[in-house]
């Protein structure tokens, strides 16, 4: 089928098997290999992408479901050379070790901050509870999200906000 959607702000138009996984489409067809496969069963969150602002496991999503949607992968977080405040906070807080879970963590965290700019601890825990990490022990990831929230607050608005104003209420 002909698929048309927006990926990281750019229009995408391609012919694809509708039963293909969104994960394979993004990695193999679009070459965006920042989205990782960790389990293929929706249990680890490494393949988390945002579809209309909502975090979803790309390994459980049919490519056809991307039709007409707005997709954000880790490659679309930074604006050129300028890292997103979450990316900066993850680096500064030591929230990255091997980095394999990081793209998914960042996107789950972004979805949270777009909805709740001042998340409580339990909101952070809930938002990231589907993303597994074996290296860090998670404490520094929590701290990084808090730090990014503070920084975004100080800046007044999220850099991604213009791209996706109404990030809540995803429909995928």
């Amino acid at each position, binding site marked *: 089928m002909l698929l048309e959607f927006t990926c990281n702000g750019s229009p995408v138009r391609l012919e694809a098997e509708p039963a293909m996984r969104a994960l394979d489409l993004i*990695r*193999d067809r679009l*070459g*965006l*290999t*920042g*989205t*990782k*496969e*960790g*389990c*293929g*069963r929706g*249990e*680890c969150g*490494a393949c988390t992408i945002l579809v209309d602002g909502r975090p979803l496991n790309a390994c459980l999503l049919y490519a056809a479901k991307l039709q007409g949607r707005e997709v954000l*992968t*880790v*490659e679309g*977080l*930074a604006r050129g050379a300028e*890292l997103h405040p979450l*990316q900066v906070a*993850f*680096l*500064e807080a*030591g929230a*990255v*070790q*091997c*980095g*394999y*879970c*990081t*793209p998914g963590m*960042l996107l789950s965290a972004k979805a949270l901050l777009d909805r709740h700019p001042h998340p409580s601890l339990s909101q952070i*825990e809930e938002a*990231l*509870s589907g*993303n*597994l*990490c*074996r*290296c*860090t*022990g*998670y*404490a*520094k*990831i*929590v701290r990084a999200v808090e730090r990014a929230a503070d920084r975004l607050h100080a800046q007044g608005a999220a850099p991604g906000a213009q791209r996706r104003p109404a990030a809540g209420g995803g429909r995928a």
Partner: protein
Amino acid sequence: MSAEKLSVVGRPAPKVDGPELVTGRARFAADFNFPGMLYGCARRAGVPAGRIRSIDTAEALQVPGAAAVLTGGDIPGPNLIGILPPYDQPLLATEEVRYEGESLALAVATTREAARRAAAAVRVRIDPLPPILTLEEALAAGARRIHPNGNITYQKKLVKGDVNRGFAQAEVVVENTYRTSFQEHAYMEPEAAVAVPGGDGRITVYASCQSPFHLRGHIAANLGVPASRVRVIQAYTGGSFGGKDDVATEIGSLAALAAVRCGAPVMIAHERAESIIGSNLRHAARIRYRTGARRDGTLVARQAEILLDGGAYASESPFVTLKALTHAAGPYLVPNVYVEAATVYTNKTYCGAFRGFGVPQVTFASESQLDELALELRMDPLELRRRNALKAGLPTATGQVFAQSVGLVQTIDRIAELRRAAGPPGGEAAGEPAGGTYPALRSTPGERYRFGRGVACLLHGISNGAEGVDVVGASVQVSQDGSALVGVGLTDFGQGSRTVYAQVASEVLGIPVERITVRQADTDSVHDSGPTVASRSTTVGGMAVLKAAREVAASLRAMAASMFKCPEDRVQLREGCAALAGQGEARIPLGEVAAAAYWSGLPLMHLAFSRAPDARFDHETHQGDVYIAYSFGTHLMDVRVDAWTGRVEVLRHLAAYDVGRAINPLLLEGQVEGGALIGFGLAHLERVETEGGHIQNANFADYALPTILDRLPTETLVVEDPNPTGPFGAKGVGEPPVAGTAAAFANAVADALGLRFTRLPITREDIVAGLEAGAAGGAAGPAGAKVKGKEAEHG
């Protein structure tokens, strides 16, 4: 050394490879894509034991997209892999199946799916054999031999003093048997490798791996070509923790064989279930332990019998056995020690290196013994440990004496100090403090929440030591623009060693960390430095970088001296400049100095070797100098146990470590926090369940990996007693937090419940069942209290 003024070492520098990792630019092995690339998938046995009668590939070759199917007969070399002698694992088995994940054939096809379908279409006929599933079955008289030399992979003993005489002097003796279960590494990146045949008769393999030279050696041997024709480049590696040593050699070799056969690039990328079933686990263990002491708490004798379930192949079992053996007596002065340790083959997934390498199992047992002893003696557990703690000048269990860098007592004192400040466990939360030997209050039976506090001390031998030659090569190259390229023969799979190396080089050369590149390991351009194991990267790898950087710094200093027209010893290299000591204004950018050095013909690159002193010990008794240094640590954990649900909440977790010198406090905390949660998993959540030789929970829905909700409030406390064999005095800390956390957890739960569990993990179900049995007048009681489980195959 502590007088040395350092500007970069000691700073919490963020990871040098961090920007690639947060933007998705970092390429992991499965991210590579080459034109015409094929995919490989193994046909696995699916039964734990049997004789192979036939492997028929005809049908598999008919699967659309199938390019080739390889079996053992297609391998030009010995069809063997393994990290250590006896190198007993076939790449593709031809005669016998020894575990369910045994690879019998490799299907190669144009897509991943086609490769999977072709692998499934390989017809195999196996005459099943009754699998040997427990230690007891493997060691039974007349048991079937899993390997020709029998079912014992490796066994050794340690003899210090006279243990019988020691026990004769003991006034109190505690004795118990402990068990631990198989644990899965569960690195987030499943194993992957891509082999690309070159047009020059060489082959390049990009791999998620831990020890690229192991990989190169096995690939070359199995291809039947000289090692110089094989190039292994480490891709970004998404965690390893010891686990990607064996399996990377397996899939790297298979991918290379298939690539040569098909004349095309071949990728093998495991799925999660394959990663759990088809790569090594942490050994399950059964440890019998006896400890004798005088009434005043002085240890006089310790005796242990350690049996490790190593599964189907040797992997690194010999060295895991050795490490368990040498660490069994704990970080204490014990005059009489007798330990027997052995690893046994069974028909299950093989076991090998996993962060801690045998030490978590024995530390859990040994530290449980210390608490059981403290209870008998009615002595504060921390005081009992302090009384017996190793100090500089006192012999370890192997009789080795260190003149410095034995900081155990300092770690105990840091913990004791904070313990005083903290008050009783759960004090604030509980209102009325309840539970625990420390405040000498125990919650009454029937109360829902029980509070407890546990401590544990440990030591961890740094670097290979008795496990073999210990050399790391590092190169440092300074360009004319004053930037530096560093290459080390060890791998970074997340722990941050590239950042540590950049800091060490920066400190010596005065080049800012941002202008230093530490390359991924590539066997074409770094020296074979052995495996990245044993918490040796910072210590031995860092030392090699230090030496190489010093040589290049000498060129820069000589050049700058001639530019300043001053003696060399007045030149300082710092902040990207050569500066004249005592004259703040006089400085020349290092780019200018390096360019001048180049035009003067001074060497700007150096390859240096760090060779740790050889281990020297008696192989019968294991008495002698076994490791170049030990890291020492003390953990304290406060818990709140929900007696109704068995849920254990960790309220406080302190981890104090003597690391010699903290090169990067941020990354150090990351090592302690991350290791601690793996230890918590081992102690409370994780167990690879097997039944009939089949793993039952090879996925993350059924295998209980800690989530963000399980994270610990770990507080890392650093003690620095410099180690003369490490750069700037540093010692490794990657492994020990696993053992310390698991042991402290077990002691905290025992303290809270007045009930000692002798098997890890202590799950919620175990706790509820144990309390019920106790209430029924069964197992509850002080030191001897045990909760018996059935002799399960998963330990």
